[in-house]
């Protein structure tokens, strides 16, 4: 039977936890808004980029000019998997989901021929203790995420692909569906899948090219890949904040419920104590009275 003081101590403890979860929720909400704005701001570039790619490939299709190493499908077993998680936890199942999704995919691949690139501390810590080869990690940049991070990452695996060290590159990350919903997804980055080249424009435009379609494609394809990596990073970041906000909201609510229950317990215990004291006093008085009468 907890004493009044015990209950009071627990209430205070839960209250301070609640203060922290509420603060974390507010911080996550503010950062989420900024992350969402960044995703929106990046959309015109990315959208136009795919459209251009589609135009270019269809305009020059049939000729050898659309041949490019990044588009070339080659049958090879060596897979590189890029896994994007957060650095921090306290975001519900955000990290666990994407790690599980990645693990399924990693297991489907031949262990000897799969290499990993881990982004975010959670992914690194998970795979570090496991038998797969980690080629590279990227950690501690989330607070200052910039396009250069995406470019660096994309250039890293594109180089390996062009050098013939890997045959496929896949990306596993949390897609930002909405504030409350993040879904782990896998995308093939290299070779660039045909569908990612965008819808074929109605009536291919007869452009004048300068210097020529091939040279333009050479410039376009790496940028296309970088843009995709950048989008994935931004979605993951927004998703992390969304997940943390939701998780902290739930935690704050749970704390409130706990405080309510504890408060009722506290009141009951207090009443019981008063009742007991009253009984003692009444009993004592009775005893005295009887003693006096005798």
């Amino acid at each position: 039977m907890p004493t009044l003081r015990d209950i009071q101590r627990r209430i205070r403890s839960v209250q301070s936890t609640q203060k922290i979860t509420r603060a974390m929720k507010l911080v996550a909400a503010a950062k989420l808004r900024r992350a969402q704005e960044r995703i929106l701001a990046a959309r015109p570039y990315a959208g136009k980029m795919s459209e251009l790619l589609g135009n270019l490939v269809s305009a020059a299709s049939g000729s050898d000019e659309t041949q490019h190493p990044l588009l070339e499908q080659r049958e090879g077993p060596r897979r590189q998997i890029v896994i994007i998680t957060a650095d921090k936890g306290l975001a519900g199942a955000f990290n666990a989901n994407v790690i599980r999704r990645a693990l399924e995919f990693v297991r489907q691949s031949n262990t000897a021929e799969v290499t990993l690139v881990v982004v975010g501390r959670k992914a690194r810590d998970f795979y570090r203790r496991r038998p797969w080869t980690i080629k590279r990690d990227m950690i501690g940049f989330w607070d200052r995420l910039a396009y250069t991070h995406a470019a660096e990452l994309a250039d890293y695996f594109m180089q390996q692909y062009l050098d013939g060290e890997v045959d496929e590159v896949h990306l596993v990350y949390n897609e930002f569906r909405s504030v409350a919903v993040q879904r782990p997804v896998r995308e093939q980055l290299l070779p660039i899948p045909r569908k990612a080249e965008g819808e074929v424009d109605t009536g291919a435009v007869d452009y004048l090219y300068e210097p020529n379609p091939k040279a333009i494609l050479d410039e376009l394809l790496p940028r296309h890949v970088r843009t995709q990596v950048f989008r994935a990073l931004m979605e993951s970041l927004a998703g992390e904040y969304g997940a943390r906000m939701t998780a902290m909201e739930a935690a704050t609510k749970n704390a409130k419920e706990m405080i309510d229950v504890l408060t009722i317990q506290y009141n009951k215990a207090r009443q019981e104590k008063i009742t007991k004291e009253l009984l003692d006093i009444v009993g004592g008085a009775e005893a005295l009275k009887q003693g006096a009468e005798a």
Partner: protein
Amino acid sequence: MADRLTLEIATPIRLVVAEAADEIVIPGSQGYFGVLPGHAPFLTTLGVGEFMYRVGHDEHYLAVSGGFAEVRNDKVIVLADTAEHPEEIDRARAERARERAERRLSGRGDEEIDYARALAALARALTRIMTAGRSR
């Protein structure tokens, strides 16, 4: 035929310009070229240089580097790696970048240098300095 051009300049992080313009001068990788309404469909890679668009009598300048420009149906779309208005340019930083690049190119600097990279860095720095000089 429309008598004005629609201009959009986007970088990976944001839409920089969305305006109607009367004339545009673009630093293509093969040299500067001008665009007036009625231009033929055109697709090119961007170089490093100063981008200009004129609205009425107002000329606007931006320092751009790398990317693409598409001209089609009097719509000009520029996808640049970077595009900055004069007032956004950090001049001191550009000066430092210029000094660094010049030092490397002069060969007095440290060990091996990537010549092409240093040259590109110099071009970017010079463009920024020039464009920054246009801000009032």
